[in-house]
């Protein structure tokens, strides 16, 4: 009788106990696999997010936010020092504003966290592609304008249009856009040319070469860009000097994005930018932003690692106690085996093969549990982790008044602040925050190999103590006890 076969047969000696044990081990191994799957998916996502954000540094006036905008905008002369720093390959400077459609009541926008308000007095002939009903909800849903004291919008109200003056016209809302027709504009030259979105062009029946008015000036549509969101669709893009002139904010910049030549130099260059601008600006590198965005995932990764360790320990303890129990029950049999010529090693191997059989059978059940539970558990962990992060972020800001626009998600509130370029932090943050929630789990061979390795580790650890006990069984004591 082969030692291995004997061990396998012994594993099924007591059917009820064997099945119970396999189910318990299966749950333990299944939990190991679920945690492995979650950890792998989350780690992969963290890497993806970190790689996707690139090597940029975002610069905003100190204390600036859409909810509490400080009146200390940066200047072009300050930023020119940044453009000349080593490792900086490109500097995008931005200024933002809003214009009201001619004939529409000019709304007053509140600022969260302060009693300040601003009224959108500048006008345009353009009409926003986003249509709101009197309750402030956009057609088709997804966006809502919060109205102070719960009032309703006038029937002729049209949503103000965001204006972005930028040195990089093909970067809108922190995202690179492509032109569907026409050509781009030079963001550094003061011209009366502009880019509009496809939504805006459709709504206003405009084509390349057509004209419209804004700030009392006639603009020509130089190009039409494909907008990926409703927010970017409601944006009018012009050169930075043009908007500075039209708004009377010469040399004013409300945000800038510096590109660093390599990821390796990002941290040091970020520090140089911080020391150059001092307390005048809030500096955040893309990796800081990514780290912040993936923090909930890091938490999930930590939880899944702890869960994995706990499950391995639980499985080991289960198999250990079971093997100890089996060895104690079969003490006489072990003595007899030794008496008829079996070596310690042989008996230990027999019991190890029994433990491995039980564990492998448990692993099969565990794999099924892992396949069934990997995706839902990962999503649940990620969802609860990122929800709690979002909720924390939302509750730290006091409620506002006036007309604050919302996409329905707390982090997108005030997307139409008077200086909307400040939302670069937030907008890319939204993208990352949404991105980190879109996690796909994969159960590949590596996961199965890890699962099997964990199962074997459980079996070996669990059998070790049993082996020690087996070596201590003295055949003559068994005989004497007869």
């Amino acid at each position, binding site marked *: 009788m082969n030692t291995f076969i004997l061990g396998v047969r012994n594993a099924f000696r007591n059917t009820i106990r064997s099945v119970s044990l396999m189910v318990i081990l299966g749950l333990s191994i299944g939990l190991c696999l679920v945690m492995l799957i979650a950890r792998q998916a989350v780690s992969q996502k963290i890497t993806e997010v970190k790689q996707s954000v690139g090597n940029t540094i975002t610069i905003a006036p100190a204390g600036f936010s859409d909810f509490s905008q400080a009146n200390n905008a940066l200047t072009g002369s300050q930023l020119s020092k940044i453009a000349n720093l080593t490792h900086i390959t490109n500097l995008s400077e931005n200024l933002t504003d809003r214009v009201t459609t001619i004939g529409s009541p000019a709304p007053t926008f509140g600022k969260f966290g302060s009693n300040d308000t601003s009224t959108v007095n500048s006008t345009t002939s353009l009409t926003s592609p986003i249509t709101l009903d009197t309750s402030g909800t956009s057609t088709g849903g997804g966006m809502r304008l919060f109205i102070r004291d719960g009032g309703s919008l006038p029937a002729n109200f049209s949503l103000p249009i965001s204006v972005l003056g930028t040195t990089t016209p093909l970067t809108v809302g922190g995202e690179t856009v492509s032109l569907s027709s026409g050509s781009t504009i030079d963001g550094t030259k003061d011209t009366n040319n502009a880019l509009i979105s496809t939504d805006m062009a459709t709504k206003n029946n405009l084509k390349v070469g057509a004209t419209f008015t804004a700030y009392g000036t006639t603009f020509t549509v130089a190009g039409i860009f494909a907008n990926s969101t409703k927010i970017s669709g409601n944006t009018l893009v012009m050169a930075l000097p043009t908007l500075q002139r039209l708004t009377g904010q010469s040399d004013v910049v409300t945000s800038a994005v510096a590109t660093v030549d390599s990821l390796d130099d990002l941290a040091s260059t970020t520090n140089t930018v911080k020391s150059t601008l001092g307390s005048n600006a809030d500096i955040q590198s893309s990796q800081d932003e990514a780290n912040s965005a993936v923090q909930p995932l890091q938490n999930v990764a930590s939880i899944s690692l702890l869960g994995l360790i706990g499950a391995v320990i639980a499985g080991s303890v289960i198999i250990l106690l079971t093997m100890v129990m089996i060895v104690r029950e079969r003490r006489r049999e072990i003595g007899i085996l030794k008496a*008829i*010529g079996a070596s310690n090693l042989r008996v230990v191997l027999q019991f190890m093969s029994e433990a491995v059989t039980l564990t492998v059978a448990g692993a099969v059940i565990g794999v099924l549990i892992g396949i069934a539970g990997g995706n839902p558990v990962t999503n649940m962990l990620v969802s609860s982790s990122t929800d709690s992060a979002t909720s924390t972020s939302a509750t730290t800001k006091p409620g506002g008044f006036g007309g604050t626009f919302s996409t329905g998600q707390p982090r997108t509130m005030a997307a139409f602040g008077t200086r909307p370029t400040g939302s670069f932090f937030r907008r890319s943050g939204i993208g990352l925050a949404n991105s980190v929630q879109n996690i796909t789990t994969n159960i590949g061979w590596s996961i199965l190999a890890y699962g099997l390795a964990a199962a074997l580790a459980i079996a070996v650890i669990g059998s070790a103590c049993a082996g020690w006990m087996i070596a201590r069984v003295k055949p003559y004591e068994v005989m004497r006890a*007869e």
Partner: protein
Amino acid sequence: MIKVSNLTKTFQSGDNIVTAVSSISFEVPDGQFASIIGKSGSGKSTLLSLLGALDKPTEGSIEIGGKDIARLGERALVGYRCKKIGFVFQGYNLIPNLSALENVMLPQSFNGISSHERKARAVELLDQVGISDDKQLRKPGRLSGGEQQRVAIARALANRPELILADEPTGNLDSETGKMIFDLLHSLSRSQRTTIIVVTHDLSIAGKTDESFRLQDGKLISKK
């Protein structure tokens, strides 16, 4: 030839030292059927475990085929038990989830014998001890006490040992079956020239063996 010289075995029991076997010396020639008799606690089973290399003596020597097994290392002792010794126990001690055939094959697997040879040898032995073909495939729980003991004897013979040690082999059997088992052991000692030492308190059985040693309080007090 088995030559036991000044064999002593002591145990620590609390603060006391208990002498289970005290300065025993005797010889058993090859192919003899010997018995060890004595009351409970006289040291019979301890002597048997020393002869079977299941325990080491405190003093003295046990020479089997000219080799002192009291001085063998652990690995050599395992080999000795596997190849030179066959055990028959009072409670049969068959492995419950193996068939009679597999129980007899088991010690041969420890001896590195091929599966084919193991099976042929096991069938031969089971036939020899009177276990029919259909019963050879039964598990011990479905065999009578006498049948189980016959399977145990076949298992003890599996590796063609020089010495069979039987500890009260008829103790759990009725007198008729016990006599049958005794006759079987007796005939085996003759047919296979195997030395058999039986521990028993049944004087009628002891009287039929070639030699008989009586133990009392760990000492050999008489020899027939």
